[in-house]
């Protein structure tokens, strides 16, 4: 017993328990990052297309998407197969019990087609129809013809999109006139002249648009001439328009180099493309752009605000009640939950200020709100309020790292306090300000709750920066990486199909945040080393 008491007093058990706690904490963070990286990185890697022949005679063609224990039969497993073909089968995932599988093959001829609509298509190519005729898959020139068809339809689709953009731009003067007519009617003014102008403008638009629409129809007709005949697993044939295909992947005949090229191209498409199929496929470029623009606007507001406050606290403040109040206010601001900022942003920025702006400047379009609803400006201002303490703390650290000797030297040479600050202190403190900015940006990229109330949406119809004047539309809603994860992960109609997209977004967001934080940490370490060396 005394041996036990002695051993407990010595503390080896307690030391080991504390060590286990540390390992647990580290394992949590490492495990999280490792899980995210391994799961996300693997989704875009091309998988083989399997053909399963079931005991009841039916055939299932698709990619293996996951395994788990079969709940109906102990000791056996079931496989989740992505069978695609949503337009034919209705569901694009199904469970297949291992007990049902009679034979499993990877047919060399099986293809995976990535489409603009309805997701993936799995099948066997039969023939290609083009204006010059039909080419069977057995023909040696099939691949050449297919590549030509894909390139041609891609070009036609791009021309169609350009035409549509031109046609929509033609409509703008008509839309503006319509608003003016409505405003005049509401104000009780005589709108007859404006009405006549509107009718003339509408006629002009129609005459101008007619040739465009005719050209569009012609382009569509030419694109429709290319179609690919595919046979599905159950033997039926389907004709797919080549213009609806994004990629043709001969999944079981790819070399490692080809797989790597496809993997990288999928990542490039993900980072630079637009979302499709209710955000479950496609790219997240609008989300990246929205996050970046919102963070930029926020930085423009928070950096001056934070730097000025830090300057006040460090250079200009005396030891009085006012300074203590400011420090207390800052500490409280840092501790306020982010959703309270969101509620404040909604109640004050959106409804009060935005409503006022609408009544003063945009009363024509009321009751449809312009600024009286969530938007990128209000979201940026809300997040600026949220991240001010981060910038202030980092800037203060930077200001404190300035050696007192340098400050005193400047004052000794006759500089005023402002001249010292501007010419000596601020340049020295720039790394600290930069650290604060980076940390604020990293925080804003990850915060979602306040944005949900002040203007982030699942799918933004247009980016906040585009080619129509005034070019920067601060009232538009935007997409955000963090919200994208929440929305697609929890409010998506097809969560299984959305998994690659959502995990990849998690990887992008995590990568962004980690890179930003590492940059800030290295900057801060450099700053602290300078502080220690200068505190001699």
């Amino acid at each position, binding site marked *: 017993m005394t041996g036990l008491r002695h051993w407990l007093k010595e503390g080896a058990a307690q*030391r080991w328990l504390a060590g286990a706690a*540390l390992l647990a904490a580290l394992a949590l963070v490492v495990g999280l990052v490792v899980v*995210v990286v391994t799961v996300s990185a693997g989704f875009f890697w091309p998988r083989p297309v399997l053909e399963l022949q079931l005991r009841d005679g039916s055939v299932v063609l698709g990619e293996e998407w996951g395994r788990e224990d079969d709940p109906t039969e102990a000791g056996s497993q079931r496989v989740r197969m992505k069978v695609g073909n949503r337009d034919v089968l209705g569901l694009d995932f199904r469970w297949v019990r291992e007990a049902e599988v009679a034979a499993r093959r990877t047919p060399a001829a099986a293809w995976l087609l990535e489409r603009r609509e309805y997701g993936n298509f799995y099948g066997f190519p039969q023939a290609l129809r083009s204006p010059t005729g039909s080419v069977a898959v057995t023909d040696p020139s099939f691949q050449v013809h297919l590549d030509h068809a894909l390139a041609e339809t891609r070009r036609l689709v791009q021309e169609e999109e350009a035409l549509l953009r031109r046609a929509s731009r033609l409509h703008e003067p008509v839309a503006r006139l319509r608003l003016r007519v409505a405003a005049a009617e509401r104000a009780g003014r005589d709108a007859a002249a404006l009405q006549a102008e509107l009718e003339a403008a509408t006629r002009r638009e129609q005459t101008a648009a007619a040739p465009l629409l005719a050209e569009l129809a012609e382009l569509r007709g030419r694109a429709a001439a290319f179609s690919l005949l595919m046979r599905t697993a159950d033997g039926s044939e389907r004709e797919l328009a080549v213009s609806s295909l994004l990629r043709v992947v001969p999944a079981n005949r790819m070399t490692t180099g080809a797989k790597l090229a496809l993997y990288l191209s999928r990542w490039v498409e993900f980072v630079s493309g637009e979302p499709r199929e209710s955000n479950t496929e496609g790219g997240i470029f609008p989300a990246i752009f929205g996050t970046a623009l919102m963070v930029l606007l926020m930085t423009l507001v928070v950096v001056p605000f934070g730097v000025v406050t830090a300057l006040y606290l460090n250079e200009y403040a005396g030891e009085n009640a006012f300074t203590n109040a400011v420090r207390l*206010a800052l500490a409280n601001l840092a*501790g*306020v*939950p982010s959703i309270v900022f969101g509620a404040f942003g909604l109640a*004050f920025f959106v409804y009060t200020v935005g409503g006022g702006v609408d009544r003063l400047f945009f009363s024509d379009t009321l009751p449809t709100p312009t600024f009286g609803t969530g938007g990128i400006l209000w979201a940026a201002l809300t997040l600026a309020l949220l991240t001010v303490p981060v910038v202030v703390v980092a800037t203060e650290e930077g200001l404190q790292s300035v050696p007192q000797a340098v400050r005193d030297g400047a004052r000794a040479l006759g500089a005023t306090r402002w001249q010292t600050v501007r010419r000596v202190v601020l340049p020295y403190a720039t790394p600290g300000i930069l650290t604060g900015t980076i940390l604020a940006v990293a925080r804003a990229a*990850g915060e979602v709750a306040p944005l949900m109330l002040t203007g982030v949406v699942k799918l933004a119809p247009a980016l906040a920066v585009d080619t129509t004047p005034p070019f920067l539309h601060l009232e538009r809603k935007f997409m955000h990486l963090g919200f994208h994860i929440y929305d697609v992960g929890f409010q998506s109609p097809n969560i299984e199909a959305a998994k690659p997209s959502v995990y990849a977004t998690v990887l992008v967001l*995590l990568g962004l945040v980690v890179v930003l934080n590492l940059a800030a940490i290295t900057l801060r370490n450099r700053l602290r080393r300078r502080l220690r060396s200068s505190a001699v």
Partner: protein
Amino acid sequence: MSPLPTRRLARARRLDRLAALCITGGGALILLSVGFLLVFLLVECLPLLSTGKGTPEGSVGVAFVPLVASEDEYRETVAVLGRDGILHLVRRDGSSEARTLEGVAPPLEEATVDSSGRLVALRDGRGSVQVWSVRLRPSWKGQGRGLELSLKPVLVAPPLKAGPILAVAGSDGSAGVLVATPTGALLLRTGSGPSPVALDALSPAVAGTLTSSLAEAWLASEGELLLFEVGGEAEVASLVARAPLAHRPTALGLVLGEVTCLVGDGAGVVTAWQAVEGPMAGLRILDRSATFPGQGAIRRLLPSQRDKTFLALRADRAELFHLTTRRRLFELPAFPSRVVWASLSPRRDGAFAVTATGQVHRWSLAIPHPEVSFSTLFLPVRYEGFTTPELVWQSTGGSSSFETKLSLVPLIVGTFKGALYALLFSAPIALAAALYVSQFAPRRLRLVTKPMVELMAALPSVVVGFLAALLFAPLIQRHIVAVLASLVTVPLAVVAGAALFSALPRTVRRRLPPAGELSLVGAAAAAAVTLTFALERAVTRLCFGGDFQAWLANSVGVTYDQRNAVVVGFALGVAVIPVIFTLAEDAFSNVPASLISASLALGATRWQAARTVAIPAASPGLFAAVMIGLGRAVGETMIVLMATGNTPLLSLSPFNGMRTMSACIAVELPEAPYGGTLYRVLILTALLLFAVTFAINTVAVMVSNRLRRRFGRLAA
């Protein structure tokens, strides 16, 4: 030596003063922002306190004797039925339009209107009881709006010997009127089925009311309240329930939704009754759910068509009450005497009264948030259909007669439940880890752990919540036994490993680098986890009959939700551990090394030095760290939104979900109408959240200051 350029000097000094002003102003801006945030949120939820008020809008005189009246929804016209059998449409300026009721012989003996103001029952000079539909519908011509009256008879009964008309009700197409008889009442109705239907009460009814579907009728006789069910084919209505009344009843009314019946009596008290399930299946009893005291006999009870407000008409005044909050809102000012009929406007934005002397009075009412009061927000409330007062959050329902249930208590309890489970998981781990890093670990380890913990702090909570909900919640559900068992087996294995390690000869132990000891700890923990998971299936079959969740439901009566407090505890823990760790580690490293060295020099082991010196000296910082971690857990939104079931349950079980204040705000505020009750209550919730985190932070600072004063001498 050239003289100093005075102009440049002056300019530099001016710039300096300007800069000082601007920068000081900038510093003040922070103070202003926080203050403004607080004040603005407070102002946005102050209107919740007001009970509303009514403003008199004057009166117009009419040249006939009024009986009953009804108002259109835009409050422009009051349709008054006079004793002359003519319906007069009286406008605000006093002008009126007259419409005769065909087939009605003046003078009318009596009349009454239903609660929607669209059906008028009258007994004409010949004694015939008739029901007329009076509908004032708006019609638009261009931008202008006019009013169209549609007036038609719905029920015409031959003259019958019966007592006064008690009530009228109905919907489009069918109508029913209750008439008092010496043995109870008689229901005359249109549509299929027998008419009249007798309601036998053994004594004459003094008041009555009908539901608009004509399926239920409430009667009040001298000492009793009775509920009848009117079936399809029976000629006699069946008595469903009865209850004795304390005072002689004078008026009955049905609150919107037709679940609660109001009884007004001669003493001036209004009681609310509802029919609930009795002790035996199929039996219903009448249960009194509220009492509204007052002075002055109740003449009529007029419910609002908008919500659970009602007007109680007494001899000389009219008061507004609200059912859910059980309170009197206010009294209509300048109420005239000898009022024959009064009612609330359809949109509850006004009221009108018609006097026997031929005056039509109007009031405009502003009642912003009648359904919310301090007691409904924080205390149990007896809602319609409930038999006991409960704390419920249910902000929207399927119909317009839904009773909004806004109790903040489930949200507050949910918030603290999540935060406490998070602290239960994260505080021991973070504090022990900080202790290890500062007291036992080599310097080099700190260089590794610091950035990793900062990385953990930087992880967006969306990512943590997403992984917790979509990856770990199903995993935990599949292996809940192993997860819970690991909480016991891992510490035991670690302690056993420590014992084994201590049993090794000292020479072997000394040769091992400190990082080596840590890897042994890791090996022991990993072995324990692997063993636990490997044995899980056998243990589940042995102890829980193969299925833990079924065992939980059957033996303990607790349901297991996939997204529950355990999952939230882990997920929130990931967010909170770095906060506590960083602050605790700072606190430990602020303990002067000289004190530790002195303790070691006196022969203490590292653990003894930590226990007797480091922990007490750092205790202010440790306490502050845990409190600030609690504040962070209370305010976290995304993790809770994703990893709980987001159900506003009031339960302390770790296997249920919860809804926290922050998640509720995030989900419901975007869809709450601006300026409405739900909007203001959610702003109040945000204010409460701010106050809670402020309180936690202040307590942390205060207690750590006090502890620093007590233990600070050690660290001096």
